[in-house]
């Protein structure tokens, strides 16, 4: 489809800073999305799914009034074991829920977080939706591609880092934003971003700017499947921009109205 209209590539030295991003994002046709990816590799027969995994999958199904509702978390659990969605994982879900493999496959291929190729130990996502892109996300993404020597949705040879440009992650007041295994790395820069991936590849502990110490991608998928890892208490309540309005209000002693005053004013007509 991308061949129908192929805009000419931008002039090679048209603009500093965003060069690489623009080549990747603008010059070469279109964003490659998960819809454009090859289908699941049905030739793959090896699996790490055990009887214990199947039991856990069953336990997810039992949480819901109707078992099929469990399919999304079940697929997260499959990824936590397999490192991606596999044919064996699809079969396991289908059997437990009484669905066909085609049904499950249809769901698995709809959602961006379900991966058809093996994901590295750390999934690094750079927001390139409009606001983050403009404020520097394009440069961060371009620098990471360059630094890691990989393109979108590719994994470094050591299996450590999978890089992806992601859509808005609801942290626009911290733009530009990078995610590592779906933990926030706020107000990022090309230098900060390369520093983080270097630390991850070196095996250092890395902390989110307002979350927990980064776990592996598989461990994160297990939490999303509904199996808590006991780390909710790590990290702060809120930081920086989240607190700005509150701090200004406190400085000026600005508050919501006093409910007693309201009730008096309305002649005691509370509830």
């Amino acid at each position: 489809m991308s061949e129908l209209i192929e805009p000419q590539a931008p002039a090679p030295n048209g603009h500093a800073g965003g060069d690489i991003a623009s080549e990747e994002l603008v010059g070469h046709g279109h964003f490659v999305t998960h819809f454009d990816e090859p289908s699941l590799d049905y030739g793959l027969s090896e699996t790490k799914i055990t009887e214990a995994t199947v039991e856990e999958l069953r336990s997810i199904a039992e949480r819901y009034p109707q078992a099929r509702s469990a399919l999304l978390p079940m697929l997260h659990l499959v990824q936590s074991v397999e490192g991606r969605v596999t044919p064996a994982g699809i079969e396991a879900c289908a059997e437990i829920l009484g669905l066909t493999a085609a049904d499950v496959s249809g769901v698995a291929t709809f959602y961006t977080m379900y991966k058809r190729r093996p994901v590295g130990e750390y999934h690094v996502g750079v927001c390139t939706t409009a606001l983050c892109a403009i404020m520097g996300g394009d440069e961060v993404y371009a620098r990471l591609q360059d630094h890691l020597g990989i393109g979108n949705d590719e994994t470094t040879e050591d299996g450590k880092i999978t890089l992806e440009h992601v859509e808005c992650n609801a942290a626009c007041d911290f733009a530009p934003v990078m995610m590592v295994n779906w933990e926030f790395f706020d107000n990022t820069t090309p230098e900060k971003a390369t520093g983080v991936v270097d630390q991850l590849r070196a095996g250092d502990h890395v902390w989110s700017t307002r979350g927990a110490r980064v776990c592996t991608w598989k461990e994160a998928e297990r939490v999303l499947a509904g199996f808590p890892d006991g780390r909710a208490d790590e990290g702060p309540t809120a930081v920086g921009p989240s607190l700005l309005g509150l701090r200004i209000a406190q400085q000026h002693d600005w508050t919501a109205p006093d409910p007693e005053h309201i009730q008096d004013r309305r002649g005691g007509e509370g509830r």
Partner: protein
Amino acid sequence: MTEPSAGPRTSGTGHGVLTPVLTANWGDERAWKLTNYERRGGYDALRSALAMQPSEVVSLVKDSGLRGRGGAGFPTGMKWSFIPQDNPKPKYLVVNADESEPGTCKDIPLMMASPHTLVEGVIISAYAIRANQAFIYVRGEVLHVVRRLQQAVREAYSAGYAGKNILGTGYDLEIIVHAGAGAYICGEETAMLDSLEGRRGQPRLRPPFPAVAGLYACPTVINNVESISSVPSIITNGADWFSSMGTEKSKGMTIYSLSGHVTHPGQFEAPLGITLRQLLDLAGGIREDHQLKFWTPGGSSTPMLTDAHLDVPLDYEAIAGVKSMLGTKALQCFDETTSVVRTVLRWTEFYKHESCGKCTPCREGTWWLVQILKRMEAGHGQPGDIEKLLDLCDNILGRSFCALGDGATSPITSAIQYFRDEFEAAMHTPAWELFPYQRSTIFVREPAGAGA
């Protein structure tokens, strides 16, 4: 930054310029823990609500004037009252915690800092509509928020606020925290229901509306995180307290999210009707030596506005009056360094990526819009492209099942309305020459690299 010219303390209304209620405990140490939430009076509202009849809770929320904070602004209490109580099927409450509208970033910090505000609201709201099962559908891409929600729900069960026979009243409620898997469309309420049923997240044709046939074809209420989180404060302080804030038809306090080329971006909780000028004053204005060019009042799906609209009250009616929508109150601000064509292309790429593929106008239309905008960004726009963009938008708007298609047209039509000259320029000059992209970034550059 902190010398705002935002006027008097209360302006005679009995409240400040900012009114922290939902955000009031975000500065507290470990505010996400149950004990810390209770220390501030948390779960008192639940006790009050359980002492009332469910229908009284619905009336109270109706009287408060609370309107949905997820974008559409539908009155929350009225939505609840549409649940047919003579229907023998189970009733469900689904919280829309799939915050994904570009620019929107209020629910995530709320759930991270004070998940119990939401959980308490869930229990009260479920009681009001007589539901015994509630779901919090949270987007999957926010791991730590999922952790905090999971823990808050567990704590609520342990304290007897959830589960069987809540606080000895005989009321039962199960709460499931359900992580999505990356699909903006699931923020659309009927797509969310399909997703929660374990299917591809595609919108349903309405009617029937979810209130009649929602999850598992049962009566279902779907509310945004901020809407549900506002409920405990309304129960505790009263409908009159809530409606004493805001404007005539847009009542209460709400969270405004200021982002982009602002000196100090952030979250501001204020009564509905504050203006962008006031908020920018508090945030230190647009970044130094730059001017506001365009902004969105409520995410990328709401038509953009310009500096001519700085004094429009940010409430549902006034923003509708300037042909936009209050949406999620996601105020994305862009300065004069920003290429409108580039920005609109990126938003359109977003809609193309997130279109679920169900309706032809949206699936095909967003793809074609991207093709045209891409060549325009490169300065290779062709005669008639602007008209073609508008024609495509005309064929998408109102012709898809859900609002995603409509939303995809908003940035384009509004951008052409206010910045047509930039689209004209796209016939011959690349956007990155007109607006060198590095000027829009906010990095502090090494002197050597800043030569250009």
